[in-house]
Protein backbone atom coordinates (compact mmCIF):
# COMPACT_ATOMS: atom_id res chain seq x y z
CA UNK A 1 0.00 0.00 0.00
CA UNK A 2 1.30 3.44 -0.89
CA UNK A 3 1.74 5.59 2.22
CA UNK A 4 -0.42 8.71 2.48
CA UNK A 5 2.57 10.93 3.14
CA UNK A 6 6.25 10.28 2.66
CA UNK A 7 9.01 12.74 3.41
CA UNK A 8 12.69 12.14 2.89
CA UNK A 9 15.30 14.60 4.10
CA UNK A 10 12.77 17.35 3.57
CA UNK A 11 14.44 20.68 4.29
CA UNK A 12 13.36 24.31 4.33
CA UNK A 13 15.77 27.17 4.72
CA UNK A 14 14.96 30.86 5.04
CA UNK A 15 18.26 32.50 4.21
CA UNK A 16 20.76 31.19 6.78
CA UNK A 17 18.07 29.89 9.07
CA UNK A 18 17.10 26.25 8.68
CA UNK A 19 13.49 25.98 9.78
CA UNK A 20 13.08 22.33 8.88
CA UNK A 21 16.21 20.18 8.79
CA UNK A 22 16.14 16.92 6.81
CA UNK A 23 13.05 15.35 8.26
CA UNK A 24 12.18 11.84 7.14
CA UNK A 25 8.95 10.03 7.96
CA UNK A 26 6.00 8.16 6.50
CA UNK A 27 2.34 8.35 7.39
CA UNK A 28 0.13 5.36 6.56
CA UNK A 29 -3.38 5.63 5.23
CA UNK A 30 -6.01 5.99 7.91
CA UNK A 31 -3.44 6.85 10.53
CA UNK A 32 -3.75 9.66 13.08
CA UNK A 33 -0.30 11.18 13.00
CA UNK A 34 0.57 13.66 15.73
CA UNK A 35 3.11 16.30 14.88
CA UNK A 36 4.46 17.77 18.09
CA UNK A 37 6.97 20.43 18.89
CA UNK A 38 7.47 23.62 20.81
CA UNK A 39 6.49 26.89 19.17
CA UNK A 40 9.03 27.70 16.49
CA UNK A 41 10.26 24.11 16.17
CA UNK A 42 9.23 24.03 12.52
CA UNK A 43 5.88 22.23 12.70
CA UNK A 44 3.92 24.74 10.69
CA UNK A 45 6.68 25.16 8.10
CA UNK A 46 6.84 21.39 7.62
CA UNK A 47 3.07 21.22 7.24
CA UNK A 48 3.05 24.08 4.74
CA UNK A 49 5.55 22.23 2.56
CA UNK A 50 3.31 19.17 2.56
CA UNK A 51 0.09 20.97 1.68
CA UNK A 52 1.64 22.91 -1.15
CA UNK A 53 1.81 26.36 0.46
CA UNK A 54 5.57 26.44 0.63
CA UNK A 55 8.25 25.05 -1.64
CA UNK A 56 10.88 22.84 0.02
CA UNK A 57 14.53 23.86 -0.26
CA UNK A 58 15.67 20.26 -0.70
CA UNK A 59 14.62 16.69 -0.04
CA UNK A 60 11.73 14.66 -1.36
CA UNK A 61 8.13 14.36 -0.29
CA UNK A 62 4.88 13.10 -1.68
CA UNK A 63 1.34 13.57 -0.46
CA UNK A 64 -1.44 11.25 -1.62
CA UNK A 65 1.06 9.92 -4.15
CA UNK A 66 1.80 13.35 -5.65
CA UNK A 67 5.12 15.13 -5.65
CA UNK A 68 5.31 18.30 -3.54
CA UNK A 69 7.46 20.08 -6.12
CA UNK A 70 5.62 19.38 -9.34
CA UNK A 71 2.10 18.36 -8.42
CA UNK A 72 0.95 20.81 -5.78
CA UNK A 73 -2.27 21.49 -7.68
CA UNK A 74 -3.15 17.79 -7.58
CA UNK A 75 -2.21 17.58 -3.91
CA UNK A 76 -4.58 20.45 -3.13
CA UNK A 77 -7.51 18.50 -4.60
CA UNK A 78 -6.83 15.53 -2.31
CA UNK A 79 -6.29 17.22 1.00
CA UNK A 80 -8.27 19.18 3.52
CA UNK A 81 -6.73 21.91 5.64
CA UNK A 82 -7.74 23.61 8.83
CA UNK A 83 -5.46 26.46 9.79
CA UNK A 84 -4.51 27.66 13.23
CA UNK A 85 -6.75 30.64 12.96
CA UNK A 86 -10.35 30.27 11.93
CA UNK A 87 -10.98 29.11 8.44
CA UNK A 88 -14.56 30.35 8.49
CA UNK A 89 -15.92 33.69 7.35
CA UNK A 90 -17.50 35.44 10.30
CA UNK A 91 -19.79 37.60 8.18
CA UNK A 92 -21.25 34.62 6.34
CA UNK A 93 -23.87 32.33 7.82
CA UNK A 94 -23.14 28.72 8.67
CA UNK A 95 -25.00 27.63 5.54
CA UNK A 96 -23.14 30.11 3.32
CA UNK A 97 -19.77 28.99 4.65
CA UNK A 98 -20.60 25.39 3.79
CA UNK A 99 -21.82 26.45 0.35
CA UNK A 100 -18.67 28.46 -0.27
CA UNK A 101 -16.14 25.80 0.72
CA UNK A 102 -18.14 23.08 -0.99
CA UNK A 103 -18.18 25.25 -4.08
CA UNK A 104 -14.47 26.00 -4.27
CA UNK A 105 -13.67 22.29 -3.90
CA UNK A 106 -15.91 21.73 -6.90
CA UNK A 107 -18.69 19.74 -5.24
CA UNK A 108 -21.84 19.66 -7.39
CA UNK A 109 -24.85 21.65 -6.17
CA UNK A 110 -26.85 18.55 -5.24
CA UNK A 111 -23.96 17.25 -3.14
CA UNK A 112 -23.58 20.62 -1.40
CA UNK A 113 -27.27 20.70 -0.48
CA UNK A 114 -26.95 17.19 0.87
CA UNK A 115 -23.86 18.13 2.87
CA UNK A 116 -25.54 21.19 4.37
CA UNK A 117 -28.30 18.99 5.76
CA UNK A 118 -25.94 16.23 6.85
CA UNK A 119 -23.38 18.51 8.40
CA UNK A 120 -25.71 20.84 10.24
CA UNK A 121 -27.77 17.87 11.42
CA UNK A 122 -24.67 15.94 12.48
CA UNK A 123 -23.43 18.83 14.61
CA UNK A 124 -26.91 19.43 15.98
CA UNK A 125 -26.82 23.07 15.01
CA UNK A 126 -30.06 23.38 13.04
CA UNK A 127 -31.00 26.51 14.94
CA UNK A 128 -27.77 28.18 13.82
CA UNK A 129 -27.98 27.31 10.13
CA UNK A 130 -28.82 30.85 9.08
CA UNK A 131 -26.86 32.60 11.82
CA UNK A 132 -23.71 34.55 11.02
CA UNK A 133 -20.69 32.58 12.15
CA UNK A 134 -19.49 35.39 14.39
CA UNK A 135 -22.55 34.85 16.56
CA UNK A 136 -22.08 31.15 17.29
CA UNK A 137 -20.04 29.76 20.22
CA UNK A 138 -16.33 29.11 19.73
CA UNK A 139 -16.56 25.37 20.24
CA UNK A 140 -19.10 25.07 17.49
CA UNK A 141 -17.03 27.16 15.14
CA UNK A 142 -14.14 24.77 15.64
CA UNK A 143 -16.24 21.68 15.01
CA UNK A 144 -17.81 23.34 12.00
CA UNK A 145 -14.35 24.23 10.65
CA UNK A 146 -13.31 20.61 10.88
CA UNK A 147 -16.50 19.32 9.27
CA UNK A 148 -16.00 21.77 6.42
CA UNK A 149 -12.33 20.80 6.02
CA UNK A 150 -13.35 17.17 5.46
CA UNK A 151 -16.58 17.87 3.55
CA UNK A 152 -15.05 17.04 0.17
CA UNK A 153 -13.83 13.67 1.53
CA UNK A 154 -10.09 14.37 1.22
CA UNK A 155 -7.63 11.50 1.53
CA UNK A 156 -5.55 13.42 4.01
CA UNK A 157 -6.55 16.24 6.31
CA UNK A 158 -4.03 18.62 7.84
CA UNK A 159 -5.01 20.17 11.15
CA UNK A 160 -2.82 22.97 12.47
CA UNK A 161 -3.37 23.23 16.24
CA UNK A 162 -7.08 22.70 15.86
CA UNK A 163 -8.01 22.78 19.54
CA UNK A 164 -6.32 26.00 20.62
CA UNK A 165 -8.41 27.87 23.16
CA UNK A 166 -11.27 25.39 23.34
CA UNK A 167 -12.78 23.97 26.51
CA UNK A 168 -12.01 20.33 27.49
CA UNK A 169 -15.48 19.03 26.63
CA UNK A 170 -15.34 20.45 23.14
CA UNK A 171 -11.82 19.11 22.72
CA UNK A 172 -13.08 15.68 23.62
CA UNK A 173 -15.93 15.96 21.08
CA UNK A 174 -13.47 17.26 18.54
CA UNK A 175 -11.26 14.23 18.95
CA UNK A 176 -14.26 11.98 18.58
CA UNK A 177 -14.87 13.60 15.22
CA UNK A 178 -11.23 13.01 14.29
CA UNK A 179 -11.52 9.32 15.25
CA UNK A 180 -14.68 8.96 13.21
CA UNK A 181 -13.01 10.50 10.16
CA UNK A 182 -9.98 8.21 10.59
CA UNK A 183 -12.22 5.16 10.93
CA UNK A 184 -13.67 6.07 7.55
CA UNK A 185 -10.20 5.79 6.04
CA UNK A 186 -9.07 9.40 6.19
CA UNK A 187 -5.48 10.10 7.15
CA UNK A 188 -5.13 12.73 9.86
CA UNK A 189 -2.01 14.85 10.20
CA UNK A 190 -2.40 16.98 13.31
CA UNK A 191 -0.09 19.43 15.06
CA UNK A 192 -0.74 20.20 18.69
CA UNK A 193 1.03 21.40 21.76
CA UNK A 194 -1.40 19.77 24.15
CA UNK A 195 0.58 16.74 25.30
CA UNK A 196 -2.47 14.89 26.57
CA UNK A 197 -3.89 15.06 23.05
CA UNK A 198 -0.82 13.36 21.65
CA UNK A 199 -1.85 10.26 23.57
CA UNK A 200 -4.87 10.00 21.25
CA UNK A 201 -2.64 9.78 18.18
CA UNK A 202 -1.60 6.55 16.52
CA UNK A 203 1.98 7.70 16.22
CA UNK A 204 3.63 10.97 17.12
CA UNK A 205 6.76 12.72 15.98
CA UNK A 206 8.39 15.31 18.17
CA UNK A 207 10.24 18.11 16.47
CA UNK A 208 13.06 19.95 18.18
CA UNK A 209 14.86 22.78 16.38
CA UNK A 210 13.78 21.71 12.91
CA UNK A 211 14.66 18.03 13.36
CA UNK A 212 12.51 15.06 14.26
CA UNK A 213 13.90 14.04 17.63
CA UNK A 214 11.60 11.07 18.22
CA UNK A 215 8.95 9.22 16.26
CA UNK A 216 6.90 6.28 17.50
CA UNK A 217 3.63 5.31 19.14
CA UNK A 218 2.96 7.16 22.39
CA UNK A 219 3.31 3.92 24.33
CA UNK A 220 6.70 3.06 22.81
CA UNK A 221 7.97 6.57 23.35
CA UNK A 222 7.02 6.51 26.99
CA UNK A 223 8.81 3.17 27.45
CA UNK A 224 11.86 4.39 25.59
CA UNK A 225 12.21 7.46 27.76
CA UNK A 226 11.01 5.82 30.94
CA UNK A 227 8.37 8.46 31.29
CA UNK A 228 4.90 8.24 32.73
CA UNK A 229 3.28 10.64 30.28
CA UNK A 230 3.90 12.23 26.92
CA UNK A 231 4.49 15.46 28.76
CA UNK A 232 7.61 13.94 30.39
CA UNK A 233 8.81 12.59 27.07
CA UNK A 234 8.45 16.03 25.57
CA UNK A 235 10.26 17.76 28.42
CA UNK A 236 13.14 15.30 28.25
CA UNK A 237 13.53 15.89 24.55
CA UNK A 238 13.23 19.65 24.59
CA UNK A 239 15.26 20.19 27.77
CA UNK A 240 17.73 17.30 27.80
CA UNK A 241 19.87 18.84 30.56
CA UNK A 242 17.15 19.02 33.15
CA UNK A 243 16.73 15.41 34.18
CA UNK A 244 13.63 14.82 36.15
CA UNK A 245 14.12 14.42 39.86
Amino acid at each position, binding site marked *: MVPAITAEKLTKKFGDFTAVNQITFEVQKGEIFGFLGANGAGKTTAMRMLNG*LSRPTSGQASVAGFDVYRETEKI*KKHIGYMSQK*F*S*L*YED*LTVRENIQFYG*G*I*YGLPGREIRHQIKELIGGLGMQEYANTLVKAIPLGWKQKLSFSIAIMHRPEIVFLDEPTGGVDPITRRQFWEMIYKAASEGMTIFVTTHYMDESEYCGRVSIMVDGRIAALDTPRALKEQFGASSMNDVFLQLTRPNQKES
Partner: protein
Amino acid sequence: MKQFGIFIRKELYHIFRDRRTLLILLGMPIVLVLLFGFAITNEIDNARIAVLDQSKGEMSQELTQRLVASGYFLIDENLWEVAEIEQHFREGKTKMAIVFPPELQENLRRNLPTQIQLIADATDPNTATTLINYASAIIGQYIQEQARGQAAPMQITTEVKMLYNPRLKSVFMFVPGVMTVILMLVSAMMTSIAITREKEIGTMEVLLASPLRPAMIIIGKVIPYILLALANTVVILMLGTFVFGMPIKGSLLLLALECLLFVITSLALGILISTRTESQQVAMLISLMMLMLPTILLSGFIFPIESMPLALQVISNIIPAKWFIIILKNVMLKGTGMEFVWKESLILGGMALFFIGASVRNFKIRLE
Protein backbone atom coordinates in the same frame (compact mmCIF):
# COMPACT_ATOMS: atom_id res chain seq x y z
CA MET B 1 -15.74 28.90 -13.79
CA LYS B 2 -18.45 27.81 -11.40
CA GLN B 3 -15.94 28.03 -8.55
CA PHE B 4 -15.17 31.54 -9.66
CA GLY B 5 -18.85 32.52 -9.50
CA ILE B 6 -19.11 31.12 -6.00
CA PHE B 7 -16.05 33.07 -4.99
CA ILE B 8 -17.46 36.35 -6.30
CA ARG B 9 -20.76 35.70 -4.57
CA LYS B 10 -18.90 35.32 -1.29
CA GLU B 11 -17.09 38.58 -1.96
CA LEU B 12 -20.41 40.34 -2.56
CA TYR B 13 -21.70 39.05 0.77
CA HIS B 14 -18.67 40.66 2.44
CA ILE B 15 -19.30 43.97 0.71
CA PHE B 16 -23.05 44.15 1.21
CA ARG B 17 -22.98 43.00 4.82
CA ASP B 18 -20.55 45.68 5.82
CA ARG B 19 -23.26 48.33 5.65
CA ARG B 20 -21.25 51.17 7.05
CA THR B 21 -18.39 50.80 4.60
CA LEU B 22 -20.80 50.34 1.74
CA LEU B 23 -22.65 53.50 2.69
CA ILE B 24 -19.38 55.42 2.80
CA LEU B 25 -18.29 54.01 -0.54
CA LEU B 26 -21.53 54.88 -2.28
CA GLY B 27 -22.23 58.12 -0.44
CA MET B 28 -18.79 59.65 -0.45
CA PRO B 29 -18.60 60.40 -4.17
CA ILE B 30 -21.92 62.21 -4.02
CA VAL B 31 -20.94 64.22 -0.96
CA LEU B 32 -17.52 65.06 -2.39
CA VAL B 33 -18.83 66.24 -5.74
CA LEU B 34 -21.53 68.36 -4.13
CA LEU B 35 -19.09 69.78 -1.61
CA PHE B 36 -16.49 70.67 -4.19
CA GLY B 37 -19.11 71.86 -6.61
CA PHE B 38 -21.06 74.14 -4.31
CA ALA B 39 -18.95 75.01 -1.32
CA ILE B 40 -15.30 74.88 -2.16
CA THR B 41 -14.97 77.19 -5.08
CA ASN B 42 -12.56 79.80 -6.36
CA GLU B 43 -15.28 81.72 -8.08
CA ILE B 44 -16.23 85.16 -6.87
CA ASP B 45 -19.88 85.68 -6.30
CA ASN B 46 -21.41 88.75 -4.66
CA ALA B 47 -18.23 89.75 -2.86
CA ARG B 48 -18.93 92.58 -0.43
CA ILE B 49 -17.12 95.79 -1.21
CA ALA B 50 -17.03 99.29 0.21
CA VAL B 51 -16.93 102.45 -1.87
CA LEU B 52 -15.33 105.71 -0.87
CA ASP B 53 -16.49 108.16 -3.50
CA GLN B 54 -14.62 111.41 -3.13
CA SER B 55 -15.41 112.62 -6.63
CA LYS B 56 -19.16 112.30 -6.26
CA GLY B 57 -19.60 112.56 -9.97
CA GLU B 58 -21.48 110.88 -12.72
CA MET B 59 -18.58 108.67 -13.67
CA SER B 60 -17.95 107.22 -10.26
CA GLN B 61 -21.67 106.50 -10.05
CA GLU B 62 -21.64 104.71 -13.36
CA LEU B 63 -18.52 102.74 -12.46
CA THR B 64 -20.05 101.60 -9.22
CA GLN B 65 -23.14 100.45 -11.07
CA ARG B 66 -21.02 98.56 -13.56
CA LEU B 67 -19.27 96.70 -10.76
CA VAL B 68 -22.55 95.72 -9.16
CA ALA B 69 -24.09 94.76 -12.48
CA SER B 70 -21.29 92.28 -13.13
CA GLY B 71 -22.70 90.09 -10.36
CA TYR B 72 -19.31 89.66 -8.77
CA PHE B 73 -19.68 92.52 -6.34
CA LEU B 74 -22.19 93.76 -3.84
CA ILE B 75 -21.93 97.20 -2.31
CA ASP B 76 -21.73 96.71 1.41
CA GLU B 77 -21.50 100.35 2.36
CA ASN B 78 -20.68 103.80 1.09
CA LEU B 79 -17.87 105.34 3.09
CA TRP B 80 -17.22 108.97 3.84
CA GLU B 81 -13.69 109.08 5.13
CA VAL B 82 -10.42 107.30 4.43
CA ALA B 83 -10.15 106.29 8.07
CA GLU B 84 -13.28 104.21 7.78
CA ILE B 85 -11.64 101.84 5.30
CA GLU B 86 -9.30 100.23 7.78
CA GLN B 87 -12.12 100.01 10.28
CA HIS B 88 -14.22 98.11 7.78
CA PHE B 89 -11.54 95.61 6.91
CA ARG B 90 -10.87 94.97 10.57
CA GLU B 91 -14.48 94.22 11.18
CA GLY B 92 -14.29 91.76 8.30
CA LYS B 93 -17.32 93.30 6.65
CA THR B 94 -15.73 93.78 3.32
CA LYS B 95 -13.31 92.08 0.93
CA MET B 96 -12.33 95.09 -1.12
CA ALA B 97 -12.60 98.86 -1.02
CA ILE B 98 -12.62 101.26 -3.96
CA VAL B 99 -11.49 104.83 -3.60
CA PHE B 100 -12.51 107.28 -6.34
CA PRO B 101 -10.29 110.41 -6.09
CA PRO B 102 -11.92 113.91 -6.08
CA GLU B 103 -10.29 114.81 -9.39
CA LEU B 104 -11.57 111.70 -11.22
CA GLN B 105 -14.19 113.37 -13.36
CA GLU B 106 -12.02 116.27 -14.25
CA ASN B 107 -8.96 114.25 -15.16
CA LEU B 108 -10.89 111.82 -17.33
CA ARG B 109 -12.52 114.59 -19.25
CA ARG B 110 -9.19 116.18 -19.89
CA ASN B 111 -7.58 112.89 -20.74
CA LEU B 112 -5.09 113.15 -17.94
CA PRO B 113 -3.73 110.11 -16.15
CA THR B 114 -5.78 109.35 -13.11
CA GLN B 115 -5.78 106.80 -10.38
CA ILE B 116 -8.49 104.77 -8.76
CA GLN B 117 -7.40 102.94 -5.66
CA LEU B 118 -8.38 99.32 -5.06
CA ILE B 119 -7.70 98.00 -1.58
CA ALA B 120 -8.16 94.30 -0.92
CA ASP B 121 -8.09 92.10 2.14
CA ALA B 122 -5.09 89.91 1.39
CA THR B 123 -5.50 87.60 4.34
CA ASP B 124 -6.95 85.42 1.62
CA PRO B 125 -4.50 86.10 -1.24
CA ASN B 126 -6.31 84.10 -3.90
CA THR B 127 -9.60 85.87 -3.42
CA ALA B 128 -7.87 89.24 -3.16
CA THR B 129 -6.06 88.75 -6.47
CA THR B 130 -9.19 87.58 -8.21
CA LEU B 131 -11.23 90.51 -6.91
CA ILE B 132 -8.61 93.01 -7.99
CA ASN B 133 -8.39 91.44 -11.42
CA TYR B 134 -12.13 91.47 -11.94
CA ALA B 135 -12.50 95.05 -10.75
CA SER B 136 -9.56 96.26 -12.87
CA ALA B 137 -11.04 94.62 -15.94
CA ILE B 138 -14.43 96.24 -15.43
CA ILE B 139 -12.93 99.65 -14.76
CA GLY B 140 -10.55 99.35 -17.73
CA GLN B 141 -13.38 98.55 -20.04
CA TYR B 142 -15.38 101.53 -18.83
CA ILE B 143 -12.49 103.93 -19.29
CA GLN B 144 -11.95 102.64 -22.79
CA GLU B 145 -15.58 103.21 -23.70
CA GLN B 146 -15.43 106.75 -22.36
CA ALA B 147 -12.31 107.48 -24.34
CA ARG B 148 -13.90 106.32 -27.57
CA GLY B 149 -14.65 109.03 -30.09
CA GLN B 150 -12.03 111.24 -28.63
CA ALA B 151 -8.52 111.49 -29.88
CA ALA B 152 -7.33 108.86 -27.53
CA PRO B 153 -3.67 108.09 -27.18
CA MET B 154 -2.70 104.91 -28.99
CA GLN B 155 -3.31 101.95 -26.82
CA ILE B 156 -3.18 98.19 -27.10
CA THR B 157 -5.74 96.19 -25.25
CA THR B 158 -5.78 92.48 -24.81
CA GLU B 159 -8.83 90.43 -25.46
CA VAL B 160 -8.99 87.31 -23.37
CA LYS B 161 -10.85 84.19 -24.39
CA MET B 162 -10.95 81.27 -22.02
CA LEU B 163 -11.14 78.08 -24.04
CA TYR B 164 -12.96 74.92 -22.93
CA ASN B 165 -14.22 76.50 -19.73
CA PRO B 166 -15.26 80.01 -20.70
CA ARG B 167 -16.87 80.84 -17.40
CA LEU B 168 -13.92 79.42 -15.47
CA LYS B 169 -16.13 77.12 -13.48
CA SER B 170 -14.11 75.34 -10.86
CA VAL B 171 -16.42 72.38 -10.95
CA PHE B 172 -14.87 71.48 -14.31
CA MET B 173 -11.67 70.90 -12.45
CA PHE B 174 -13.16 69.23 -9.42
CA VAL B 175 -15.22 66.59 -11.18
CA PRO B 176 -12.20 64.91 -12.81
CA GLY B 177 -10.30 65.32 -9.55
CA VAL B 178 -13.00 63.84 -7.34
CA MET B 179 -13.48 61.01 -9.81
CA THR B 180 -9.78 60.20 -9.63
CA VAL B 181 -9.71 60.25 -5.85
CA ILE B 182 -12.78 58.04 -5.56
CA LEU B 183 -11.58 55.50 -8.10
CA MET B 184 -8.22 55.35 -6.36
CA LEU B 185 -9.90 54.93 -3.00
CA VAL B 186 -12.30 52.19 -4.04
CA SER B 187 -9.85 50.32 -6.22
CA ALA B 188 -6.57 50.56 -4.36
CA MET B 189 -7.49 51.08 -0.75
CA MET B 190 -10.54 48.84 -0.59
CA THR B 191 -8.89 45.92 -2.38
CA SER B 192 -5.74 46.14 -0.31
CA ILE B 193 -7.91 46.05 2.80
CA ALA B 194 -10.07 43.22 1.47
CA ILE B 195 -7.09 41.03 0.64
CA THR B 196 -5.18 41.68 3.86
CA ARG B 197 -8.37 40.91 5.75
CA GLU B 198 -8.28 37.35 4.44
CA LYS B 199 -4.69 37.12 5.58
CA GLU B 200 -5.48 38.53 8.97
CA ILE B 201 -8.36 36.20 9.72
CA GLY B 202 -6.41 33.23 8.35
CA THR B 203 -8.71 32.29 5.51
CA MET B 204 -6.08 33.17 2.91
CA GLU B 205 -4.05 30.11 3.92
CA VAL B 206 -7.06 27.91 3.56
CA LEU B 207 -7.88 29.37 0.15
CA LEU B 208 -4.30 28.88 -1.01
CA ALA B 209 -4.39 25.27 0.18
CA SER B 210 -7.60 24.73 -1.81
CA PRO B 211 -7.74 23.87 -5.51
CA LEU B 212 -8.42 27.54 -6.34
CA ARG B 213 -5.48 29.01 -8.21
CA PRO B 214 -3.84 32.03 -6.53
CA ALA B 215 -4.49 34.22 -9.57
CA MET B 216 -8.16 33.28 -9.43
CA ILE B 217 -8.36 34.21 -5.74
CA ILE B 218 -6.93 37.66 -6.46
CA ILE B 219 -9.06 38.29 -9.56
CA GLY B 220 -12.14 37.08 -7.70
CA LYS B 221 -11.41 39.53 -4.92
CA VAL B 222 -10.97 42.54 -7.19
CA ILE B 223 -13.84 42.10 -9.66
CA PRO B 224 -16.56 43.31 -7.26
CA TYR B 225 -14.48 46.41 -6.59
CA ILE B 226 -14.10 47.09 -10.31
CA LEU B 227 -17.89 47.10 -10.54
CA LEU B 228 -18.21 49.33 -7.49
CA ALA B 229 -15.64 51.76 -8.91
CA LEU B 230 -17.39 51.94 -12.26
CA ALA B 231 -20.76 52.50 -10.56
CA ASN B 232 -19.17 55.41 -8.71
CA THR B 233 -17.82 56.78 -11.97
CA VAL B 234 -21.29 56.82 -13.47
CA VAL B 235 -22.73 58.58 -10.41
CA ILE B 236 -20.01 61.24 -10.43
CA LEU B 237 -20.36 61.86 -14.17
CA MET B 238 -24.15 62.16 -13.88
CA LEU B 239 -23.85 64.62 -11.00
CA GLY B 240 -21.26 66.61 -12.92
CA THR B 241 -23.39 66.72 -16.04
CA PHE B 242 -26.87 67.23 -14.67
CA VAL B 243 -26.18 69.27 -11.53
CA PHE B 244 -23.20 71.33 -12.62
CA GLY B 245 -23.57 71.32 -16.39
CA MET B 246 -20.17 69.81 -16.98
CA PRO B 247 -19.90 68.74 -20.62
CA ILE B 248 -18.62 65.39 -21.85
CA LYS B 249 -17.44 66.39 -25.28
CA GLY B 250 -15.40 63.31 -26.16
CA SER B 251 -16.55 59.76 -26.79
CA LEU B 252 -18.23 58.04 -23.88
CA LEU B 253 -16.67 54.74 -24.89
CA LEU B 254 -13.18 56.21 -24.75
CA LEU B 255 -13.98 57.76 -21.39
CA ALA B 256 -15.22 54.40 -20.05
CA LEU B 257 -12.13 52.59 -21.32
CA GLU B 258 -9.80 55.15 -19.78
CA CYS B 259 -11.63 54.85 -16.46
CA LEU B 260 -11.25 51.08 -16.63
CA LEU B 261 -7.55 51.49 -17.35
CA PHE B 262 -7.10 53.72 -14.32
CA VAL B 263 -9.14 51.34 -12.15
CA ILE B 264 -6.90 48.45 -13.20
CA THR B 265 -3.78 50.48 -12.43
CA SER B 266 -5.15 51.34 -8.99
CA LEU B 267 -6.19 47.75 -8.34
CA ALA B 268 -2.71 46.58 -9.21
CA LEU B 269 -1.36 49.07 -6.68
CA GLY B 270 -3.82 47.81 -4.09
CA ILE B 271 -2.77 44.22 -4.70
CA LEU B 272 0.87 45.21 -4.45
CA ILE B 273 0.22 46.84 -1.08
CA SER B 274 -1.62 43.77 0.14
CA THR B 275 1.29 41.49 -0.75
CA ARG B 276 3.52 43.53 1.55
CA THR B 277 1.23 43.95 4.53
CA GLU B 278 -0.22 41.58 7.07
CA SER B 279 -2.93 43.63 8.72
CA GLN B 280 -5.86 45.73 7.56
CA GLN B 281 -4.75 48.73 9.59
CA VAL B 282 -1.32 48.80 7.99
CA ALA B 283 -2.86 48.36 4.54
CA MET B 284 -5.20 51.26 5.15
CA LEU B 285 -2.45 53.49 6.49
CA ILE B 286 -0.14 52.77 3.58
CA SER B 287 -2.96 53.34 1.10
CA LEU B 288 -3.80 56.67 2.70
CA MET B 289 -0.26 57.92 3.03
CA MET B 290 1.22 56.60 -0.18
CA LEU B 291 -1.77 56.76 -2.49
CA MET B 292 -4.45 59.14 -1.31
CA LEU B 293 -2.27 62.06 -0.26
CA PRO B 294 -0.18 62.17 -3.44
CA THR B 295 -3.35 61.68 -5.47
CA ILE B 296 -4.93 64.71 -3.86
CA LEU B 297 -1.88 66.92 -3.52
CA LEU B 298 0.50 66.08 -6.37
CA SER B 299 -1.80 65.15 -9.22
CA GLY B 300 -2.74 68.65 -10.25
CA PHE B 301 -6.20 68.14 -8.80
CA ILE B 302 -5.95 71.00 -6.30
CA PHE B 303 -2.54 72.58 -6.84
CA PRO B 304 -1.29 73.19 -10.36
CA ILE B 305 1.75 71.04 -11.11
CA GLU B 306 3.42 73.90 -13.01
CA SER B 307 3.72 75.97 -9.85
CA MET B 308 5.29 73.23 -7.75
CA PRO B 309 8.99 73.10 -6.91
CA LEU B 310 10.96 71.14 -9.50
CA ALA B 311 11.47 68.15 -7.22
CA LEU B 312 7.73 67.74 -6.72
CA GLN B 313 7.10 68.21 -10.42
CA VAL B 314 9.41 65.29 -11.10
CA ILE B 315 7.72 63.17 -8.43
CA SER B 316 4.29 63.98 -9.84
CA ASN B 317 5.23 61.98 -12.93
CA ILE B 318 5.10 58.69 -11.06
CA ILE B 319 1.63 59.42 -9.75
CA PRO B 320 -0.96 57.62 -11.89
CA ALA B 321 -3.62 60.17 -10.96
CA LYS B 322 -1.71 62.97 -12.73
CA TRP B 323 -1.96 61.18 -16.06
CA PHE B 324 -5.56 60.18 -15.51
CA ILE B 325 -6.61 63.76 -14.76
CA ILE B 326 -4.91 64.93 -17.96
CA ILE B 327 -6.79 62.25 -19.89
CA LEU B 328 -10.11 63.12 -18.23
CA LYS B 329 -9.78 66.82 -18.96
CA ASN B 330 -8.83 66.14 -22.55
CA VAL B 331 -11.67 63.76 -23.23
CA MET B 332 -14.37 65.53 -21.24
CA LEU B 333 -13.61 69.22 -21.77
CA LYS B 334 -11.71 69.34 -25.04
CA GLY B 335 -13.43 66.40 -26.67
CA THR B 336 -10.17 64.98 -27.95
CA GLY B 337 -9.88 61.42 -29.14
CA MET B 338 -7.30 58.72 -28.60
CA GLU B 339 -4.81 60.52 -30.84
CA PHE B 340 -4.17 63.10 -28.12
CA VAL B 341 -4.23 60.90 -25.05
CA TRP B 342 -2.43 57.78 -26.25
CA LYS B 343 0.78 58.83 -24.55
CA GLU B 344 -0.86 59.24 -21.16
CA SER B 345 -2.83 56.02 -21.65
CA LEU B 346 0.36 54.18 -22.48
CA ILE B 347 2.02 55.51 -19.32
CA LEU B 348 -0.94 54.34 -17.22
CA GLY B 349 -0.94 50.95 -18.94
CA GLY B 350 2.80 50.63 -18.33
CA MET B 351 2.33 51.44 -14.66
CA ALA B 352 -0.43 48.83 -14.40
CA LEU B 353 1.81 46.16 -15.93
CA PHE B 354 4.67 47.13 -13.66
CA PHE B 355 2.54 46.94 -10.51
CA ILE B 356 1.00 43.62 -11.54
CA GLY B 357 4.46 42.20 -12.27
CA ALA B 358 5.76 43.41 -8.92
CA SER B 359 2.76 41.90 -7.08
CA VAL B 360 3.18 38.53 -8.76
CA ARG B 361 6.84 38.53 -7.78
CA ASN B 362 6.06 39.47 -4.21
CA PHE B 363 3.33 36.90 -4.00
CA LYS B 364 5.72 34.16 -5.13
CA ILE B 365 8.35 35.21 -2.63
CA ARG B 366 5.74 34.97 0.08
CA LEU B 367 4.88 31.45 -0.96
CA GLU B 368 8.53 30.36 -1.03
